[in-house]
């Protein structure tokens, strides 16, 4: 066993010396290979983590959201429909939602403006510390109180709670005023009484919470209309049935069930997505070129080297072992370096390389640290996608060269 290990070590010594003789070519190869693994691993880590986080966070999203559709577009939902939905067997509760978008021309950003619904979470730890409240505000409670001490009444008239992204971008905080232009042209100055926590930016960065009357005044929406409604169902297995009953009863409605919301985020950054396929195809194409370069044959120098090795007594199996170690040295080094760099990139630098593309034209982008969900399956997949094909591609042409006569291998050097 020891002699076998020693033999392999000598072969590795020779292989590395051989690689170092063509230093520039091989270091370039290693760098490019590492880059491919880095891109693939970064994409894999990022998409897997965001999908898993979305699934965990959005588990609590509404069971059914019912929109009204007019000419294929989302329209305001008449309050009168609520009783129709309540009359459907299996419906536990129907709650209107008021939300919309406000474009802030000052910073060219879109905010999501929302009237908070009444609180659901019973666990105090779940509902606490999400809003940082101004200690000087006489109306504000201490931070240990639940997230909405107003319990469904939302912020008081003339006040708002803003997401951390809005606070950061506008450089405002508790106690400051934010001007809004209402639908009737009047300027509404709303006082910031709280900011949503920085930890929740992934879901709340652009949120603005205000009360029902301020919302209706801001957007000029009549009391008889809401944005959409949330339906809760008594038996979770009947969600789909209830949704179909709603559709049958209200032909101009579009029920969206929770499963669809979750599936939307399961398919986000899908490999078919335009940008993803560009990233992937560039990486895969580069890898195919590597593999092709290796598989299409050896250079004249390498062929002569094999001829000399065979002439001095190396066996075919030794030559193949040497080439196996050559592939292993390059691919293992590239694999480990690429994966380590990808992990640092995604989970320590907030995907700095992807960020410009992800931000797009958004003026307001959430600062969020992804929870590192990494498992052995991802690493194994990556290993078989990169290391194995490269190593195999290195061995096959060598086997062809190593089985020919050393004399002819050394003579045919000009090809």
């Amino acid at each position: 066993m020891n002699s076998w290990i020693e033999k392999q070590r000598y072969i590795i010594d020779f292989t590395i010396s051989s690689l170092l003789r063509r230093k520039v070519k091989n270091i370039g190869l290693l760098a490019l290979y590492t880059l491919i693994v880095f891109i693939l691993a970064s994409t894999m880590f990022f998409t897997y983590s965001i999908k898993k986080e979305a699934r965990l966070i959005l588990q609590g999203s509404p069971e059914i959201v019912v929109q009204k559709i007019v000419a294929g577009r989302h329209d305001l939902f008449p309050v009168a429909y609520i009783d129709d939905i309540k009359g459907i067997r299996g419906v536990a509760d129907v709650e209107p939602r008021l939300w919309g978008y406000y474009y802030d021309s000052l910073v060219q950003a879109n905010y999501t403006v929302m009237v908070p619904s009444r609180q659901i979470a019973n666990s105090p730890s779940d509902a606490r510390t999400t809003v940082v409240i101004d200690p000087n505000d006489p109306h504000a409670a201490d931070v240990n109180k639940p997230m909405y001490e107003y319990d469904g009444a939302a912020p008081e008239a003339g006040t708002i709670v803003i997401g951390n992204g809005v606070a950061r971008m506008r450089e405002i905080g508790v106690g400051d005023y934010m001007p809004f232009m209402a639908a009737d042209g009047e300027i509404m100055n709303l006082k910031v009484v709280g900011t949503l926590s920085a930890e929740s930016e992934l879901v709340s960065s652009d949120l603005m919470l205000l009360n029902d009357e301020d919302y209706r005044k801001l957007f000029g929406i009549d009391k008889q209309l809401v944005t959409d409604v949330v339906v809760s169902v008594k038996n979770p297995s009947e969600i789909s049935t209830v949704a179909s009953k709603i559709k049958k009863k209200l032909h101009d409605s579009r029920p969206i069930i929770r499963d669809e919301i979750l599936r939307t985020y399961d398919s986000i950054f899908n490999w078919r997505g335009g940008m993803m396929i560009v990233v992937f195809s560039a990486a895969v194409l580069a890898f195919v070129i590597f593999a092709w370069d290796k598989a299409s044959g050896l250079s004249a120098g390498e062929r002569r080297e094999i001829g000399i090795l065979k002439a001095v007594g190396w066996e075919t199996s030794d030559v193949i072992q040497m080439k196996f170690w050559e592939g292993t040295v390059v691919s293992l080094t590239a694999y480990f370096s690429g994966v380590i760099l990808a992990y640092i990139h995604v989970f320590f630098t907030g995907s700095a390389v992807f960020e410009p593309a992800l931000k797009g034209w958004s003026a307001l982008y959430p600062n969020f640290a992804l929870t590192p969900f990494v498992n052995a399956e991802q690493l194994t997949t990556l290993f078989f996608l990169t290391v194995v094909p490269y190593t195999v591609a290195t061995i096959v042409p060598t086997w062809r060269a190593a089985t020919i006569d050393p004399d002819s291998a050394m003579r045919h050097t000009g090809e």
Partner: protein
Amino acid sequence: MRQSSWFFFGITAEAIVLSLLLLHAASSENAQQSSLAQKAALVKNLRLTDLCLFTEARYTRHLSQADLNTAFQDHPLSLEHFPSGSFTQPNLPNEAP
């Protein structure tokens, strides 16, 4: 030192770093449970439906609530022009009728 020793030393060092990062992943996963729970509670309390990933257009801000004719929202021949639209795909077929 022999070349092979350098190689094994390097690979072992990289494997150790990777193991430490995996340990970091496992420990952060546990440490972030409360943060995840807080976000989930916020989603539940505010009846939120989407992640705040792309705020550039209404259909990318609320992907699950977007109109089904999103790509043509500006006019019938309009092509997708927001960068984030290229990361996502249209809402999956509606199972509810």
